[in-house]
């Protein structure tokens, strides 16, 4: 990587481990998260939720609740106008306002246990809770369906009588729970499989898992008599919240100002609205601010997990290990409304490999579960887990080293991905090489220990982004971005701004502006915020540098070719340099009023060229044959970051994604009873990894520059959750000889499998 990246910038801070500018607030308890905001006169809002997984709502009587002293507003479906069916892109997912309005507040039917049915605002939490008990809802309980395969059966209980499968010919005459069939095709798989010496076909099942952010959803709304609306909430995208709330409540977007609080984790789960429109509707009715915070149980029951799925994979290879044909069929749960991440699941399934003949089919299926939300590389971990398991099996059967087999088939620059594009420079081969070179790869293993490897892919996105830089009177810099900082964004952007303008890092103060302070920003998601945000900052800095050069020309009576911006100053060139001293950004700041007024720049971009990121994970684990418990012993991640703006926070993404993946592979799952009710809606029974469950996660930064980004950056946040599921399943096979095809590989399942094979006497 060259020393000088863009015009006149230095590389002092980019690529170093600076202290995050929001750090002091976050280690002292001063940082304000969603539930930490309060307003004078605020009421407390609470939601009444359906106890039934599927029921027609015959009537709702709120009169007794409204009569309770201290209750200031009650809302139900009657307070939300219906929305027409219209699909709009929502990050990596699609959404339909007709469904969104029904998800935030049930209309005709309650479609899952925990579905919001009414909400109240009262002068205290205790009164709000009492009021909920006074709301009389008459339900006609309907048969429910939880499992994705059962939901696809012709006689399954039907969630929506107007849902006709899209993507099949002829158009179905009857509605079903299958919302959509999607497909990608490349070459001729039938012909391809004929060339194969070995074909492995297997079916896999994964359980729905929750994003598991530690901070529950929270919102505080205040609506004035003139309709001006203020909202503070924890979200990955306050501009998106604004758009959704304005649409659902019939408000002008310009009248709604949304401030994103600090966000206590999201992982995709905070890209949609739940409480926000309810808080606004309650505040509008009560004429007082309304604060709403979900309990953990509500988070589990009523906010989006990701899909559980059934996946069938068929992969053919020649005897020397060349993949010749690949087929997969994916059935993804969408929850109560259509819109599972099956499309990206389909596109990612075989993306790590250069295969001539590929055919992938996906089904988006509704059932009586909470509507899924995005979860870190939505859809990809599921399909790639299945594919990576089969790749491992092929390696074993053909007696080829699993890294060599992947290397032989790896996607590289010029590979045409089955989902469409031709890859530019990508780093899969580099991550495989990096893993192979580790001491870990050759370390000895004992009995009941196993080692697994898997690779993973995610697209990454760019998108609409605005960020501004303002040169203050003393030469310090105010940086404003509009994408919530979920894991060190401010540090990365401040480093870029400091290098671009040649000012010290601690003279740049980055803040996340509200929707009224900075231009439109798409949300923090798709691994886009550092990628796109840094591009916008480069653009803003470019404007400032051009402006300062223009001012220097006026002050020095010079022509543009006689000045240049470098090292934080405008410098005179040639003969001029002998007479005139360079002027720094701070020097210009002092005379701004006399040289043309305030100095600043705004990057308004639609960021393109997000480079995909590939990663390869290596894991060692040990199985306890007495209990079926699996302990992860050692873990190494290698991933292509393009260029790590802040290496420590990039490593943090790798490590955090790996551990989320460990949870998905070994423990986490939504467990339903026959009654269609969630049985483990709490952190004790929904078992996420704790510190004593995992080892250190070694992180190897691979940097294959993304040529479309001024610093070479690729998004890094999502890819790390893709390989762990396959890597762990492959390590389980290595430890036990058993190919596990169902997640999570929890102790009861592992123990049963060991007993069935006569491997455990427990």
């Amino acid at each position: 990587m060259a020393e000088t990246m863009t015009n006149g910038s230095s590389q002092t801070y980019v690529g170093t481990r600076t202290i995050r500018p929001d750090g002091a607030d976050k280690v002292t308890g001063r940082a304000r998260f969603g539930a930490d905001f309060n307003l004078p006169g605020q009421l407390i809002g609470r939601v009444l939720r359906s106890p039934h997984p599927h029921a027609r709502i015959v009537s709702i009587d709120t009169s007794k609740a409204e009569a309770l002293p201290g209750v200031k507003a009650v809302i139900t479906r009657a307070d939300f106008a219906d929305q027409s069916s219209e699909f709009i892109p929502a990050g990596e997912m699609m959404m339909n306002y007709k469904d969104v309005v029904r998800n935030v507040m049930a209309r005709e039917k309650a479609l899952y246990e925990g579905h919001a049915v009414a909400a109240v605002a009262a002068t205290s939490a205790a009164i709000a809770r009492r009021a909920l008990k006074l709301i009389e809802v008459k339900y006609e309980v309907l048969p429910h369906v939880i499992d994705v395969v059962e939901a696809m059966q012709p006689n399954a209980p039907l969630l929506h009588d107007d849902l006709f499968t899209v993507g099949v010919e002829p158009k179905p005459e009857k509605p079903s729970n299958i919302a959509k069939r999607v497909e990608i095709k490349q070459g001729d798989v039938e012909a391809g499989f004929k060339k194969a010496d070995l074909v492995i076909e297997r079916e896999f099942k994964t359980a729905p898992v929750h994003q598991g952010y530690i901070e529950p959803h929270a919102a505080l709304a205040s609506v004035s008599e003139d309709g001006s609306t203020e909202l503070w909430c924890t979200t990955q995208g306050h501009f998106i919240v604004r758009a959704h709330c304005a649409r659902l409540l019939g408000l002008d977007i310009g009248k709604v100002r949304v401030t994103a609080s600090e966000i206590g984790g999201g992982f995709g789960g905070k890209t949609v609205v739940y409480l926000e429109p309810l808080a606004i509707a309650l505040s509008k009715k009560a004429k007082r601010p309304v604060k709403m915070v979900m309990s953990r149980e509500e988070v589990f029951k009523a906010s989006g997990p990701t899909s559980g799925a059934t996946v069938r994979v068929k992969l053919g290879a020649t005897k020397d290990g060349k993949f010749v044909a690949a087929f997969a069929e994916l059935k993804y749960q969408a929850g109560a409304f259509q819109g599972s991440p099956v499309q990206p699941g389909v596109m990612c399934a075989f993306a790590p490999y250069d295969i001539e003949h590929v055919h992938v089919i996906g089904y988006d299926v509704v059932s009586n579960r909470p509507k899924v939300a995005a979860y870190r590389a939505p859809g990809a971990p599921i399909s790639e887990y299945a594919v990576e398991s089969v790749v491992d099996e092929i390696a074993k059967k053909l007696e080829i080293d699993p890294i060599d087999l992947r290397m032989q088939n790896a996607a590289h620059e010029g590979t045409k991905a089955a989902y469409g594009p031709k890859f530019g420079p990508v780093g899969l081969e580099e991550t495989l090489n990096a893993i192979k070179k580790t001491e870990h790869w050759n370390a000895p293993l004992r009995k009941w220990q196993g080692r697994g490897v898997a690779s993973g892919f995610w697209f990454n996105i760019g998108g609409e982004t605005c960020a501004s830089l303002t040169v203050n009177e003393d030469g310090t810099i105010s940086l404003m971005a509009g994408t919530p900082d979920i894991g060190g964004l401010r540090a990365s952007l401040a480093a870029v701004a400091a290098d671009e303008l040649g000012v010290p890092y601690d003279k740049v103060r980055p803040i996340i502006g509200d929707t009224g302070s900075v231009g439109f920003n798409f949300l923090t998601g798709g691994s886009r915020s550092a990628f796109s945000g840094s591009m916008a900052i480069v653009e803003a800095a470019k404007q400032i540098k051009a402006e300062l050069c223009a001012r220097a020309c006026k002050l020095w009576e010079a022509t543009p070719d006689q000045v240049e911006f470098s090292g934080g100053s405008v410098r005179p060139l040639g003969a001029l340099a002998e007479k005139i001293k360079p002027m720094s950004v701070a020097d210009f700041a002092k005379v701004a009023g006399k040289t043309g007024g305030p100095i600043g720049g705004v990057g308004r971009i639609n960021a393109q060229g997000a480079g995909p990121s590939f990663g390869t994970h290596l894991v060692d684990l040990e199985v306890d044959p007495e209990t079926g418990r699996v302990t992860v012993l050692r873990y190494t991640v290698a991933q292509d970051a393009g260029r790590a703006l802040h290496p420590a926070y990039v490593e943090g993404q790798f490590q955090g994604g790996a551990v989320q993946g460990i949870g998905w592979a070994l423990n986490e799952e939504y467990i339903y009873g026959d009654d269609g009710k969630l049985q483990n809606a709490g952190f004790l029974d929904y078992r996420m990894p704790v510190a004593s469950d995992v080892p250190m996660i070694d992180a190897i930064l691979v940097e294959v520059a993304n040529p479309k980004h001024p610093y070479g950056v690729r998004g890094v946040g999502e890819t790390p959750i893709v390989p762990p599921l396959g890597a762990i399943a492959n390590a389980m096979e290595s430890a036990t000889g058993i190919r596990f095809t169902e997640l999570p590989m929890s102790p009861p399942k592992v123990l049963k499998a060991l007993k069935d094979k006569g491997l455990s006497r427990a």
Partner: protein
Amino acid sequence: MAKHHIEAMVNGDAVEFLCETEETLLDVLRDTLHLTGSKEGCASGDCGACSVMLNGRLVCSCLVLGCEVGGQKIETIEGMATGETLHPLQQQFLKSAALQCGICTPGFLVASKALLERMPNPTETEVRYWLAGNLCRCTGYDKIVSAVMDTAATMRKG
């Protein structure tokens, strides 16, 4: 029923407050005393985001009732720094990038401080088991565990 009148010490300051019987210490800290550094992640003692010290003992403040703390000494994240000087753990968490979103950070810091007061030279395993009551979903714990061990080493040197 009338509210309870409670007097206690919080971060060295005498405080008095009124609370309902069912209000937890966490509710009192956050809603009555406006000390919102302690977070509610679960309200069931499973996530540790509300960790505080009660008479020198590490507790989840969501599992303690406000009316139980009369005459007792409570230390929260807001009392961890001394004047303008951050506690060595706070400094090391920043240096090590041991936080991403930061919601669990106050709980981890309070719990880690309690550990180092008892065990100035913990092994990695001891750190991991001591912190097993604190959930973090962002970091995978790697940099948190390193930060605690590095702080312990620094503090041992004095």
